[in-house]
């Protein structure tokens, strides 16, 4: 007939369970052959997000700016932070973190929110989480534009070619998040509770991730955090350093610090000496120029991401046949 080109012309459905290799191959061909559908859905999703507001897509620029201003106000005025160029320091980690939370947070409704569609027409459901991650990239790009604008026009000192590494870090982050999106979007169909749990987890993650603070501030929050966590570890009988290890070694933290390294630069504490006596009277945070990210760390996170994506696709494809029954 030639009318329909992207959907299969003959369908055989039974309760056969294809093996893992076949599942992954199916998922891959589904995404590739239905790329136009993905494009349409991303476009619709992006359009929809700005449709009910007066300012529309202007909010995508205003949103990160306002968030940044609030935190800058709170941290510098109320908490008296002395980090140099704090707004850029904050924004360089906030923008990628927002991308992460927005993607993971909305993954729980990627499938459940399309209930009508799933019960109405046959299409590969795997494109739903893929669509979600792609449409979140769009808002990330707007946030990134704000960050780079502030970086370039307000903080001239920080401008180096190291920002060219941002796409690489973003790709690693995308792959890392993708697997989680598959798993969460599929499992939430069966346990809606996950949506609530994820919301709280994201709130916790915001505070334990280096956004308002950095591991590079050795003399500052980093060190104090470490000693505080050791206290918790002692009272719960955990091995010393495990909590700090989890917080500092988790992929989200490492990614955020990578962004910060290439956009903002590094921080170091130097001793402040009394000019008259030559004695050390305190410490001060100084800013050092941007450096390339730690490639080994990125490679490890990427590998973890690939493994999670494979697991995620398997989980999703395995659960997919039950979606229409449960929803």
């Amino acid at each position, binding site marked *: *007939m030639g009318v329909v080109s992207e959907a299969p012309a003959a369908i055989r459905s039974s309760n056969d369970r294809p093996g893992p290799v076949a599942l992954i191959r199916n998922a891959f061909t589904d995404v590739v052959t239905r790329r136009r*559908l993905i494009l349409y859905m991303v476009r*619709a999703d992006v359009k929809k997000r700005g449709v009910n507001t007066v300012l529309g897509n202007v909010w995508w620029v205003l949103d990160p700016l306002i968030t940044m201003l609030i935190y800058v106000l709170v941290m510098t005025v109320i908490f008296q932070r002395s980090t140099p160029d704090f707004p850029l320091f904050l924004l360089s980690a906030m923008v990628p973190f927002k991308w992460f939370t927005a993607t993971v947070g909305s993954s729980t409704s990627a499938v459940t929110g399309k209930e009508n569609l799933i019960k109405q027409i*046959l299409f590969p459901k795997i494109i739903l989480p893929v669509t979600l991650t792609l449409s979140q990239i769009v808002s990330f790009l707007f946030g990134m534009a704000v960050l780079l604008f502030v970086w370039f026009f307000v903080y001239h000192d920080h401008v180096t070619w190291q920002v060219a590494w941002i796409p690489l870090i973003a790709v690693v982050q995308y792959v890392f998040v993708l697997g989680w999106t598959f798993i969460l979007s599929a499992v939430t169909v069966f346990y809606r509770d996950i949506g609530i749990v994820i919301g709280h987890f994201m709130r916790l993650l915001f505070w334990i991730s280096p956004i308002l603070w950095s591991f590079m501030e050795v003399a500052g929050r980093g060190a104090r955090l470490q000693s505080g966590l050791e206290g918790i570890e002692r009272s719960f009988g955990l091995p010393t350093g495990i909590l700090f290890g989890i917080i500092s070694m988790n992929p989200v933290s490492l990614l955020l610090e990578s962004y910060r390294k290439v956009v903002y630069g590094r921080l170091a504490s130097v001793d402040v000496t009394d000019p008259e006596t030559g004695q050390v009277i305190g410490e001060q945070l100084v800013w050092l120029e941007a450096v390339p990210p730690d490639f080994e760390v990125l490679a490890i996170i990427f590998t973890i991401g690939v493994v999670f994506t494979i697991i995620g696709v398997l989980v999703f494809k395995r659960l997919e046949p039950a979606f*229409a029954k449960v929803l």
Partner: protein
Amino acid sequence: MAGSMDERNNAPEAVEERVDSTRDERMDEDALAAIAEAENQAPDRSDFGLKVDVPLGDVAIRAENLGIRYNLNFTKRTKLRTTFANILDPRRRNAGHFWALRGVDFTVRRGEAVGIVGANGSGKSTMLLALAGILKPSEGVVETSGHISTLLSLNAGFDNELTGRENIALAGALMGIDEHVMAEITPGVIRFANIGAFIDAPMKTYSSGMKARVGFAIATSVDPDILLLDEVLQTGDNTFKEKSRRRIAQVLQTAKAVVMVTHDMSWITAFCNRAVLLEKGKIVADGDPDEIADMHEQDAAKRAKQKRKAKQLMLHGVASQDEIKQARKEGTLDDMIQGKTGEVEEAKAEKRRQIQEKRARRKARRAAAARAEAPTGNGSAAEPEAEPVAASARSDESDQGAGKQS
């Protein structure tokens, strides 16, 4: 507001119909000819007369030993808590299975229009979902050859924030139709839906009738090999109904397979050249649509009667609600009703006797009161009324009351 919009949009319909999409014009004529022919052949069905005889082609849908099982442990309202309870309690672990469909063998050839009828919950919609491939069989196989177009619900999976035009494009992409083909089809869809300027307004501003029009227009315009319709044909005004009837006749003309689920027997008898009766997830009859429609209507009448009888059982305390539920599940409700008819009759007679007794006692009491008042001489106005009551009470075999009095 929505109603007035509808009317405004329907006004130019008569004109619109004549200028239907040029692509379909020839088919339209064919369909009209077929209608005329069918009218001549079957004057008894002149109200619709759309039944089209098309030579049966090859197999479009084949279902073999199809079974759909729902796991009741995982319904929408499942909580983590209940799952843990199910895991911990071995009695509950395998409790929640329900076969919505089982052992269904079903073949549809090209050119066939099959109507699926049955009571609520007999598995009609489940069957359609399975044929569409949306529900995976728990056992058995469903094979379809050809492109499927489904219209299974009124909102047809539309995105309410997008405009009608965007939704048409999205639906095309969902069905996997080429962009250039979609560009060709879209004007025809818009013309058929005939909702005027609303086509560029967000779908949330549409009335349900307008949505149904767009959905129906898309589903039938994409030139599907197999068209699956679920209970969507009742909506819309008469003009649109008539239009959609003609469109279905067209789809049939081009030797497509149609499977529809509806409660409206007139659609089954007018359109389908075959019908299937489902009962509790099984096909119990398959054949001529008129016969099946009759059968279904008789069944419905029988069920209504059974329901009434079962209610009586409960009312008279012969059987509890749980017992009736149990009997219905085991299919022994009819026997139960049969077996307990005597008891019901007894209970009824008992109740009647009690009521009569009560009435008699009341009458006797009133009569006694009247008699007690009568000697004092006043209340002459009440006397003529009280007298016949007392008389009738006495004549009404109320020995007890009288006995008590003396």
